[in-house]
């Protein structure tokens, strides 16, 4: 198929495309944190927030409202009118697989993304 020698221009094009490929591979590796996204799952919907940006938001489900904060790469439940209060007492989550659960509201907050060197955090 390639019986002729590659021209300088062909080699240049190949080098540029390969460089782009390597950059695409390298950028996520350079920017990946311990955990990238907070995935919020309610009985009605699923949505995500980046852990890299400090923010706060509310989630309402089954008559319960959770006031969630993302601060310094970690997420936690700041306030809630939930009767058992387990979610407020839970520690902040920041690593892949870590979860805060509010059973009465049917809401879970799970950190997803960020490879680290483990497949999961248990416990």
């Amino acid at each position, binding site marked *: 198929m390639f019986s002729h020698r590659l021209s300088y221009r062909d080699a240049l094009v190949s080098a540029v495309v390969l460089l782009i490929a390597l950059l695409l591979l390298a950028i996520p590796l350079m920017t990946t944190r311990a955990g990238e996204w907070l995935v919020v799952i309610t009985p009605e919907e699923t949505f995500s927030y980046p852990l890299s940006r400090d923010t706060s938001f509310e989630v309402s489900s089954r008559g319960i409202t959770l006031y969630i904060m993302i601060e310094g790469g970690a997420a936690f439940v700041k306030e809630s009118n939930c009767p058992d209060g387990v979610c407020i007492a839970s520690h902040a989550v920041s*690593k892949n697989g*870590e979860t805060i659960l509010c059973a009465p509201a049917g809401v879970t907050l799970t950190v997803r993304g960020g490879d680290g*060197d483990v497949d*999961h955090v*248990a416990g």
Partner: protein
Amino acid sequence: MKRTLLVLLTLATLLSICGCGNGGRSTTFFLMDTSITVTLYTNNGVLAEDIFAECREILVEYDSLWSRTKPESDVSKWNDSENGDVTLDVRTLSLLQTALAVSENTDGAFDVTVAPFVELWSACEADGRLPLEEELEAAFTLTGYEKLTLTDTSLKKPFANMRIDLGGIGKGAAIKALIAYLETSGVEGGLVSFGSNVAVFGAKPDGAEFRVALRDPKDAGGTVGVMTLQTGEILSVSGDYERFVMIDGIKYHHLLDPESGYPAEKGLASVAVIARDGALADALSTALFVMGRDAAMAFYESGIYAFEAILIAQDGSIDVTKGFSNRFSENK
């Protein structure tokens, strides 16, 4: 033409390089009173969606059998019965057989009849006070696995108010069933997490071992070490930080000692058990926590069951059973 082919070839290289990081496809369900995540290592999105749907069906079925809140579940029907004369599903009977055997072999450190204590602590939290002595005494009369009799089709009880809770063993059995299905699903590998129960199957795309970190019971953002988990093994963790009630600003965790009716305080903060029987791993993680370090290690040495364990004490010290010492690496 030649140039087009060359560019296509390099683009293919580009795509293959970018696509090699197969982090897997995940879905999360909220069932069995916990958050369940299934991760599949596959690039076939259609297959993954079909498998997720089947996983959900399997788990809905187990939830329908063992839920304490669904009125038609085996557990609810049994709890509401006069003498336990309820025909139970064969999976429930099998689970109860394991539960009663573990109860007996651990001298009651694990006990499926502990529900009256759990309910008492919840009621006391609502009242903002500790349980009264007479309330604990009343609960004692309604607990005790040895009061139950398992037959071929049902579980007999002497008092109508006796109640069982399979929350400390059912998730382990369900995760085992889920893994059994996933092993035949056509996907090469994956991971299932019920939060405190984790199992893997098959192989990762890069052929590396599955590595699971163990949460630090004193710092939810931290871990104490990493273990390798092999296909067919189920990890179950019980810790004093998982669920609790708050009374007068003090946390009382959910791992109750059936002997006292109070949260077990035998010096352990977290126990991880690894076994090939999911129900066993789940029940033993609770039992070893209730026993405390020395009794737990003696129980391991007795060889009654095939399992390994990691015990984390309140002071942060960690003990690993000898069969697992080369598979758990403690953080330095």
